[in-house]
């Protein structure tokens, strides 16, 4: 049951997007999110949708899979839309019944807001689908490196993410095992109210925490035995390097932002 949870939804492939440097993808995603919030008019939104579709196609990921990544957040998207539909202020009333009132402005706002969310989710899932978690971690470390001087622990954060990625499947397996063991001893995890259920989880959480601490302790010793001494003087097997394609990607994203700015301030 718990093993269904997939982490780091990496989908290996050979597309241009897969081969971009992770830093390019992370920065590009951030810039594109800014571009999303620059959109105000229909032309802007259409342009953004076309661009996201083009990126998805270029990544050669199964389109259905990318869209399915919206599912966990579908509720929030629909809620956003509904709230704007029914709460939106506006002059042109389209529909009125008792306290419900839908205006044209509210309708437009609802669609725009949820579209922003959808675009944001799609572009970030392209990032995680096309970048292996380890490469992503490396990218984050490298991007945070300049901030070391102001006290950002770039290497430590990246190492924490690496270890978390390594151990989450192990801990999930272990949780599964403990649940089964406690069920065999007659524990009941499915009945009772929320408080009752939370209380029933204690016999799972306590052994899990104890074992996690023991693991952490042993891992620390094993890392030390393998000459780990922090980020200083460390080399990498996978070195990050920008290529011409990365430069092209940056130019492209700047052009996208320029177009969005133009559409915003000088509408057609």
């Amino acid at each position, binding site marked *: 049951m718990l093993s269904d949870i997939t982490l780091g939804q990496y989908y290996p492939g050979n597309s241009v997007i897969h081969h971009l440097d992770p830093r390019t993808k992370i920065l590009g995603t951030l810039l594109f999110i800014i571009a999303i919030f620059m959109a105000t008019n229909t032309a802007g939104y259409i342009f953004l949708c076309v661009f996201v579709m083009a990126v998805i196609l270029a990544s050669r990921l199964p389109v259905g899979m990318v869209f399915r990544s919206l599912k966990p957040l579908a509720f929030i998207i629909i809620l956003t839309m509904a709230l704007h539909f029914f709460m939106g202020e506006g002059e042109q009333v389209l529909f009125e019944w008792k306290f419900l009132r839908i205006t044209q402005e509210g309708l437009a706002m609802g669609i725009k807001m949820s579209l922003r969310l959808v675009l944001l989710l799609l572009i970030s899932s392209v990032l995680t689908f096309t970048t292996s978690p*380890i490469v992503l971690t490396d990218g984050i470390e490298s991007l945070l490196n300049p901030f070391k001087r102001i006290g950002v622990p770039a290497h430590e954060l990246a190492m924490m993410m690496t*270890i978390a*990625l*390594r151990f989450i499947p192990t801990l999930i397996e272990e949780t599964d095992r403990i649940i089964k063991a406690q069920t065999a001893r007659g524990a009941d995890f499915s009945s009772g109210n929320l408080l009752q259920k939370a209380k029933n989880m204690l016999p799972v959480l306590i052994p899990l925490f104890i074992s996690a601490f023991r*693991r952490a302790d042993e891992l620390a010793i*094993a*890392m030390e035995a393998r*000459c780990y001494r922090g980020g200083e003087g460390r080399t990498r097997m996978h*070195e990050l390097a920008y290529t011409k394609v990365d430069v092209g990607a940056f130019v492209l994203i700047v052009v996208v932002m320029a177009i969005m700015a133009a559409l915003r301030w000088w509408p057609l």
Partner: protein
Amino acid sequence: MQPLIELQDLTHAYTDAENNQVLALQKLNLQIEQGEFLAVIGANGCGKSTLAKHLNALLLPTGGKCLVNGMDTQDESHLWDIRQTVGMVFQNPDNQIVAAVVEEDVAFGLENIGVPHAEIRPRVETALKAVDMSAYALHAPHLLSGGQKQRVAIAGVVALEPRCIVMDEPTAMLDPLGRKEIMATVKKLQREKQITFVYITHYMNEAMQADRVIVMDHGQIVMQGKPAEVFSRVAELQTLHLEAPLAATVAADLRHAGLSLPRDIITNEELAAALCR
């Protein structure tokens, strides 16, 4: 030739939660030769793990000396040299693998000691090949069998090209097949790369395959010698709560009953051969 590791009156006292001193090693003297396969056995709590942790300066002596390749483990300036000379493999394979991809994990130690980027990949590949795990370079460790995980852990140490690998009950959590894999890997590395092994185990049939066995009790070495010499001393092993191999026990019983058998029978084959004569 100078021994690879030399322990002189090595003593270690832990301070436990109630501030009591627990003497885990008492004036232990031992020389470990270049290229040998040394098995360490002894009852629970006799100080085997404590001894192991001294060999690459994870613990420092509270008395006496531990010299690795002539370097004193107390000397802070040799710390990383010592850890590169003596690698360590622990009992639980899950808790010593750091990265989510096998080859990344094998590279971990090399990255730590700052091996140039271009040299890392070839060394990782050589190490994976040495433990027969090349085919799994891109796998996720949590999906491997126990024996395979443990071999990945060994590869991570082998990549550092150590002179000696200390293994603390590496097979304790493995099934019989996994145990065989590890034993075969150890012997192969000893033969092909002349790596010295210090192998702590509770399995007598593993210790029997070593070049030399030391038996510990209460922080001291109480018996040592070739496996045949140590394991044929059935009665002494029993007083130390260790079980001699079946063949040795049977041979001792038969000898007791008046049969004249050679003293150094420890394997079933040797026993059969002696009886058929």
